[in-house]
């Protein structure tokens, strides 16, 4: 069974009485362990697609199946629980909780998912922070970290609960080239080592260079879906 199945997915936003279609019928299947990139011009619907896949939003039409479960029928709490246990998010602006340290930001995600006792939680957080090369910075708060370091905390936070899917919305948009490359290497390594499925939205060619599948969105439709070796 594929991890994700999207059938004729539509999403319409409303500005007053005016309908603004963001997605006009998307059909995609995503297998487990994929490292895929969704790209396209601004306003093409990339972020909307990721929000639907990540159960942050529900489609106006069509169906989104996540690991065999249809999210269309889920209520707010069920969607929250799906995100809690199975989806990790990485955002362009990091969205770390400023009053928590790097360690605590990562630990918080694990605590919410109730995975492991105190000792195993601590070990797990330290391991994942080591994996994203943040040893020694655990006690720093977000305002004491660089953009790249913040994004690595965000990656660690997304991965620590071992989700089935990680969604990264323009993860390198605020980072310089070297830092972006470092971040992508880390995510690529995670995908290889942990088998976690990654889907990015981006218009960064470097990010697309790492992807093994490229899905192009234009005007709310899939205009190209290409597997790469």
């Amino acid at each position, binding site marked *: 069974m594929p991890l994700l199945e999207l059938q004729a997915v539509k999403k319409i936003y409303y500005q007053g009485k005016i309908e603004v279609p963001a997605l006009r019928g998307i059909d995609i299947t995503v297998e487990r362990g994929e490292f895929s990139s969704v790209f396209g011009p601004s306003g093409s619907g990339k972020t909307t697609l990721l929000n639907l896949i990540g159960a*942050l939003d529900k489609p106006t039409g069509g169906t989104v199946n996540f690991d065999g479960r249809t999210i269309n029928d889920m209520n707010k709490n069920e969607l*929250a629980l799906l995100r809690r246990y199975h989806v990790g998010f990485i955002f362009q602006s990091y969205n770390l909780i*400023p009053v928590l340290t790097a360690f605590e930001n990562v630990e*918080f995600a694990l*605590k919410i*998912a109730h995975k492991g006792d105190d000792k195993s939680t601590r070990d797990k957080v330290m391991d994942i922070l080591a994996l994203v090369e943040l040893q020694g910075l655990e006690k720093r708060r977000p305002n004491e970290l660089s953009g790249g370091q913040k994004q690595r905390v965000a990656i660690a936070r997304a991965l620590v609960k071992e989700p089935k899917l990680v969604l990264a919305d323009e993860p390198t948009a605020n980072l310089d080239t070297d830092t972006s490359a470092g971040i992508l290497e880390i995510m690529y390594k995670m995908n290889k080592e942990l088998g976690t499925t990654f889907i990015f939205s981006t218009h960064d060619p470097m990010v697309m260079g790492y992807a093994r599948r490229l899905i192009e969105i234009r005007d709310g439709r899939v205009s190209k879906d290409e597997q790469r070796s």
Partner: protein
Amino acid sequence: MYLLKIAFRNLFRRKWRTITTAGILAIAIIIFLWMDALLVGIENMSFDNIINLESGHIQIGRTDYFAEPYEDTLDKLFKPTEEHLATLDKSEVITGFTPILDFPAIINNGADEFPIQVRAIDPQSYNEVFINQDFIVAGEFVKSNDGGLVIGNQLAELLEFKVGDYFTILFRDKQGWFNTIDGEIIGIMRSPHPEMNLNTVFIAQDNVYTPLGLESRTISHIALRIEDREIAQHYAAQLSEDIADKELTVRTWQESAKMVMAMREAGQLENIVLLGLILLIGAVGIINVVILSALERMEEIGMMKALGLLERSIVKVFALEAVGIGIIGGLLGCGLGAVVIAFFNKYGISLATFGMSEELHYGIPIVDRLYGAWNPPAFLLIFFFGVVVALLASILPARNAARKDPVKTIYHR
């Protein structure tokens, strides 16, 4: 635990906002505590003055006398029996009792006159129940077989009496004829009870029976002092059963302090109004803080939702922050309130501050300065009230924040 940690740290994220809101709450709490100390102080001083100078803890008299003591007073008197006195003597609760004969009269200085209440006392036992003698400012208090009169300083000023001056008291005797008692002023008293200083004069009982046409030992009531004023009502009920005399009523100091008791009820109403104001002040401050915090932390709320936190958990974060502000405000208010009250209790405040004087006391039996009193339950009440108000005020804005669409909050649209 993490929600608590986040809430706690958020309190220090906007320190000045937290301090300002908690400070406003604290000021409201201080005002409440001060007002409460003032009311309790008035109450305590008033009760003490009434008990120590006017009524004692318990009074025994005829039911019709207590119903209307100033009309046909001499027809409502009684002579205590040996059984009555034996009952009082053997009581372990009573620390002293004294027979009193109160009757209305007019005092004359040869030129002017003024209506008064004559208190004819048994000087030996009177001091076991009352402390009027402690407030003699000129001359001396009433002694046995002494024909002299002790008056209050206000009456002395009004009729220009000095110790050694002659007085005339005019009254109707038992048969309804006018009669008088003449003598010297032997003492002037300035007590903390303004009415006693103006309206009441003291004389030995032996000097009034013949002019009044009464048999010896006839009295209007017996005043009792007991160990603790708080047990007065309970003991009065027991004493009533022990005396078992249908004509007599046993009543407590609360009956004499009706004015103050009414003021206590008004004070409780005032406290409710103050609590309402604090509720409003606290609620407005907290709602303001929660709304501002929610607006500032929109992306954070979105991220929490993306992490799978349920709406009720997000509400908890804001509610815990509000409770934190309530606790800070409560501790600050109670702490500073305690300092203010300690100062107030020690140094008091002049009654002139409230436009009151010895002459203009609005029926409150206190003169000069008013002192506050500690009321620990008020501290507990207002502290928890502040915290609960903070909690309740936060719920609605916090729910609104938590219900926001996660997509809109994450991207702050």
